[in-house]
């Protein structure tokens, strides 16, 4: 059983961080970020060519992290692979000792650096979750028997500040019935609205990790709304960043406040730091959460089952 799964099952707080594999073959920086993450996080997500920008595969990234003793979460999107390739990658992941997965639909290819590429979307996030559940039961999507059934800890994405809360809840319910066992949310900036949504989403009975992004500038915050669509940054926050003497400090303060306001309603935090990973320990401290998460339960990263 993975540390992430174990902690969430025991209702212990879980900290995760998102890491991007390199665009190229040099993995030194990626691995050193991973090694640093052991100081504050229980597991690291490896993105699957986020924003449809071509990079090294998430599967390879996860295997590299695992070798360095970091528990990986394999992000899998439906953008580039049909159901044959997706099932095949999931079986391969399990064989390599990767059990945590985050099933995503994925951005459209038109948004990335290869707009000429064919968008696949043979499955979508709920169907990918149900494909993973199907493999766990020992059969593939076509009903064929498997030689050995894998086990996964299956995650999905959610938006805690949705434009249409009723619809978001339906989507979450659909993902849960397809097999989702935990959620990692998009970044939240309006703690008030997220609070009222979390009170409803909490009743679904599946642990939710709150998404945290450090806003690097007011400009980045505005871009975020168009890049990570569905993210909403309040005007008041933009003003704080614009008038701040030290933007890093202000950004850290904003993140810590949001975390503190919502900590009691979530079961963990998911950092998407975009290069500012070194701020994470401070953000945890600022929110009253010790950044020694790993030290307190330095369990061995499991491989296999």
């Amino acid at each position, binding site marked *: 059983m993975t540390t992430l799964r174990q902690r969430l099952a025991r209702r212990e707080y879980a900290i995760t961080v998102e890491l991007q594999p390199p665009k190229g073959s040099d993995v030194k920086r990626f691995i050193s970020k991973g090694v640093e993450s052991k100081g504050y996080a229980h597991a690291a997500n490896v993105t699957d060519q986020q924003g449809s920008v071509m990079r090294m595969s998430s599967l390879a990234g996860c295997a590299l992290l695992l070798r360095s003793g970091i528990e990986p979460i394999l992000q899998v999107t439906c953008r580039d692979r049909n159901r044959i390739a997706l099932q095949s990658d999931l079986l391969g992941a399990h064989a390599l000792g990767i059990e945590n997965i985050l099933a995503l639909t994925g951005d459209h290819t038109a948004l990335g650096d290869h707009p000429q590429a064919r968008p696949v979307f043979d499955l979508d996030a*709920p169907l990918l979750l149900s494909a993973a559940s199907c493999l766990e039961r020992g059969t593939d999507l076509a009903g064929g028997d498997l030689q050995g059934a894998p086990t996964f800890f299956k995650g999905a994405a959610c938006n805690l500040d949705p434009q249409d809360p009723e619809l978001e809840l339906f989507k979450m319910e659909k993902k849960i019935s397809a097999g989702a066992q935990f959620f990692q949310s998009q970044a939240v900036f309006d703690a008030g609205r997220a609070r009222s949504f979390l009170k409803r989403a909490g009743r679904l009975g599946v642990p939710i990790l709150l998404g945290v992004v450090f806003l690097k500038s007011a400009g980045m915050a505005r871009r975020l709304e168009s890049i990570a669509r569905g993210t909403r940054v309040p005007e008041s926050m933009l003003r704080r960043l614009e008038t701040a003497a030290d933007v890093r400090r202000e950004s850290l303060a904003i993140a810590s406040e949001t975390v503190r306001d919502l900590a009691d309603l979530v079961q963990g935090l998911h950092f998407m730091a975009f290069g500012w990973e070194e701020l994470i320990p401070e953000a945890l401290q600022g929110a009253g959460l010790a950044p020694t998460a790993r030290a307190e339960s330095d369990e061995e990263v499991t491989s296999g089952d």
Partner: protein
Amino acid sequence: MPLMFTRPKPLDELSALLEERPSVFVLGCNGCENCFGNGGVEGLYRYQQTLAELGRTVVAEALIDLACEATHDRLWLDRLAPELARADAVLVVACGVGVQVVAGLVDKPVVPALDTFSPGGRVGQAWAFESCAECGECLLGLTAGICPVTACAKGLRNGPCGGSVDGRCEVNPELLSCGWARIVERLRASGRLDSLKALIPAADHSRRRPSEELLTAIAALRGGESGR
């Protein structure tokens, strides 16, 4: 040659789509050479029988010259408004284009009687206006008469992705609406939003392919050459 190729939807699928919908208004299409042999007067008779076998009541039926033309549909839908009001669903015996046009005119659940498939090769159709992908397993009965295969840039089957904001698509928010946002709006208006909780299975791409019979017919037209 007909423009759109259709075949009757499997009976179990049709029966599921008409569950808890005892009274059915049937709308047939007389276009495209009687809808590839599945429409016209004979099509209406056939579905009268099918519905009787499924234990449904036909409240009224109409044969439209071209179901894909809203003006033609309106002529009959207005004339039969009282009957339509009593119906629990509208069964449309037409291609995917016809079903979607009808669904835009009535505020009842619309059920496609046929699956529209592709003989392969398209001529003169702009992607931006495509409404039926001829996928061979019509979803319109589950998606409020708007096709997610064509109206969603990703062809998603289980609701909008995170890129849907203000009802616009992430691919080009200025020019493209989010098809799923439109489906959600229509389902919500008719109190059927919770139907979104059910998982729509992955596409069966083998149903896109033309049948052996059609391939044989096309080969015969070409003097025995299939061309593939």
